[in-house]
C-alpha cells in the first residue's frame, strides 16, 4: 500500500489532468450471495474496462472501491486506472456496516483531496456511488456520523452522491438520509452492467469537460438501469 501511495503521489506530479474522483461504496454482505454478487463483479469489471478504453478518462478519473460485507474494506485506493491492474473481485459474506464503509470512503476522499491540493492538481466535484440490497447493521453511531458528514459535504457542494437500492429489501429510507437533495433510485432487477456502462459514460463526459462546465448526463440512459 505504501508503494501504491508513492506511485499515486508521483502520478499527481507527472499528470496534471484535472481529476474526477469516484468512489464506489458497495454492499457485499451475505445477502448479495449468488447472482447479485456475480452481476456486481461483472458490472465493476465492465466499468473498469470502459474507463480504461477512454483515453481521456484513463488519465483523469480516479476510481476507488470500498466494500461492506462483514467489515468495511478498501478494495482500491484513489488512483487512475493507468495505475490499477484489474477490477477488484468481490465475495459476499457478513453483515452490512454501511456507516463504517461510508466513513472510510469519506476519509479516503479527504486524504486524496489533500494530496491534489498539495500537488497543485485540479479536481472535479467527487462522486460517491452507494449501492446496497439491505439495511445497515453496523454501529448506529458510525452510521449517523457518516450520514451527517455526507449531507454536510453535499450541502457545501463538495460531493455528489448516487444512492442506489438493489432488490426489494433495500432500505431506501436510509439511502435517502444520505442524499439530502434528491431521492435515491432503485436498480432495475440486476442491471448492474447497464448501470456501470452508464456511469463510465458519465465519467468520460465529465473528464472531457473543462472545469466549470455543466455536464449533461445521459438521462435516457438511466432508463436502462433504474426503476422510474
Amino acid at each position: 500500500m505504501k508503494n501504491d501511495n508513492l506511485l499515486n503521489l508521483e502520478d499527481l506530479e507527472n499528470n496534471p489532468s484535472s481529476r474526477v474522483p469516484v468512489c464506489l461504496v458497495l454492499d457485499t454482505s451475505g445477502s448479495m450471495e449468488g447472482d447479485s454478487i456475480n452481476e456486481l463483479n461483472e458490472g465493476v469489471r465492465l466499468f473498469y474496462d470502459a474507463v480504461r478504453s477512454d483515453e481521456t478518462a484513463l488519465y483523469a478519473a480516479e476510481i476507488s472501491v470500498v466494500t461492506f460485507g462483514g467489515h468495511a474494506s478498501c478494495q482500491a485506493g484513489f488512483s487512475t486506472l493507468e495505475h490499477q491492474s484489474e477490477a477488484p473481485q468481490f465475495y459476499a459474506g457478513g453483515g452490512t456496516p454501511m456507516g463504517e464503509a461510508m466513513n472510510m470512503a469519506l476519509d479516503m476522499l479527504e486524504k486524496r483531496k489533500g494530496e491534489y491540493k498539495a500537488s497543485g492538481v485540479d479536481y472535479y466535484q467527487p462522486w460517491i456511488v452507494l449501492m446496497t440490497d439491505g439495511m445497515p447493521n453496523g454501529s448506529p453511531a458510525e452510521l449517523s456520523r457518516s450520514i451527517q458528514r455526507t449531507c454536510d459535504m453535499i450541502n457545501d457542494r463538495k460531493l455528489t452522491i448516487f444512492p442506489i437500492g438493489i432488490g426489494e429489501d433495500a432500505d431506501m429510507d436510509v439511502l435517502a438520509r444520505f442524499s439530502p437533495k434528491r431521492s435515491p433510485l432503485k436498480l432495475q432487477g440486476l442491471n448492474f452492467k447497464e448501470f456501470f456502462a452508464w456511469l463510465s459514460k458519465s465519467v468520460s463526459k465529465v473528464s472531457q469537460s473543462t472545469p466549470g462546465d455543466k455536464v449533461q448526463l445521459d438521462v435516457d440512459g438511466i432508463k436502462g438501469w433504474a426503476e422510474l
Partner: protein
Amino acid sequence: MKAALNKTAQSIVPDRNLPVSLVAKPGHVLHMQNGQYVTLGTILGQGGEGSVFKTNTPYVAKIYRPEKTTSHKMAKIQALLDKRIDCPGVCFPKAILYNSRNEFVGYLMGMVEGEKVRSLYMKPLFLKKFPSWKKRDLVELCITILKKIGYLHKNGIILGDINPDNILVKSPKDVYFVDCDSYQVDGYPCPVGTIPFTPPELQKKVHYGSYLRTVGNENFAVAVLLFSLMVTGQMPYNQKDGEGAQANIINMDFSYPLGDVSNKKTPAGPWRFLWSHLPRFMKEAFYNTFSKGGCYSTESTRLNSYDWLKKFNEYLRLLDSGKYGAQDKMSEEVYPTRFKKQKGVVYVKCPQCNEDTDEKYIKERGICMECQRKMRSRRHQKSFEPRKSSGYQGTFGRTTRTVSRATPQLGLLDILNWIF
C-alpha cells in the same frame, strides 16, 4: 474600441428558442436559403449541442438538438456568412440549413481533422499522438493558432470560449477551430466560457451571455492557452498548497517564478523544468500577464495576438537556428527532465538519477536538488495525515456552463427531478 468595451448586450433582442418539430436523422433532406438541397449521411460525432452529420456534399452539417436552436445562433451564423471572411482551418458556417418544414436546424461547415488540444495536455497521450514533436513544433503550433486568432480579432470577431476542446491539431501548421457558432459577432455575445480561461475582471460576472467581451478580455484567454501549450498541460493558476483556480485568477497569484521572484507555489513535478527552459523574454511576457501589477496584467495592457506572434516567431527562430539548443540541448525537448543549464556553472552527473546537475550541489549534498526534493516528499508522505475538512472546495466548484460563479452542483438526480 474602448467605447464598446463594457456595453451590455441590451441593444440586441434577447435570445429565444426557435422550436424544431422534426428530429434530424440520416437520410433527411435539408435545404439552404438558395434552394439547394443537402442530404444528411451518417453521424460523425455527437456533443451537448447536437450532432455532426456527413452529407452528400464535401461539407459536413452541424445539426442542433431541437431544443438548442435559438434566434441568436441563427443571427450569428447569418452574420458570419455576411462577413464573407475566410480563414483556413476556422470552421465558419458555409450555409444555414432548414428542414422540410422550413425550420432552422443547423449549418453546413468544412470537415475537420486532428486531436483536441486537450490530448496535448496529457503527457502519455501527447507522446502517443505526436511522438516526434519537439519544442519547436509546439512553438509553431502557437504561431499557427495566433495567426488565426489575430485574423478573427482584426475582423471584429471574438472567439469568447477559447478552450482545449474547440481547437483541433493535426500538425503544427494544420489547426482547426470548431464551434464557431458561439463566437461573439456583431453584438451577439458568446454564451459560454470556462473559469480557467476567463480573465479576473470577468470572473465575478454571472452569465457569460449577459455581456460582450473585449479583445482585452480575450487576450487573457489567449495567454492562458499559450501558457498551457508551453508548460504543456498546466494552467497558470494551478498551484500547490494554494487557493482554487478562480480565487487565484481573481488575485492574479501566478505560480511560476521570474528570477528570484516567486510565490513558491509552483506545482510539484516536471512543470518547473518546462518553465525554466523557456527563454527569458517568454517568461517575462507570461509573468507580466499573469501576475498582479505586471506590465501586461490588465484588460487594456495585455499583449495581443500580434505581440505574442512576434515573441513566438523569435522563439522559433532561436530554436530552428540551433542557437537556443547550443546553450542547453534539452531546451529543444517538449518535456525536459531538469532545470535549464546556467552559464558559468560546472555540470556533473547526479549519481542517483544520472541527470546533469550543478557540481557544487553534488559536492555539498551528494545528490541533485530534484532527488533531494523527491526524498523530502517521500518522508512527508510517510507522515501524511488526512487533513480535516477545510473551506477548500477543489480548485473549482462545478458551475454551470453559462454561469461564472459557483452555483449548486447539478447532478443526475437534479436532472431527473426536473423531468419527473
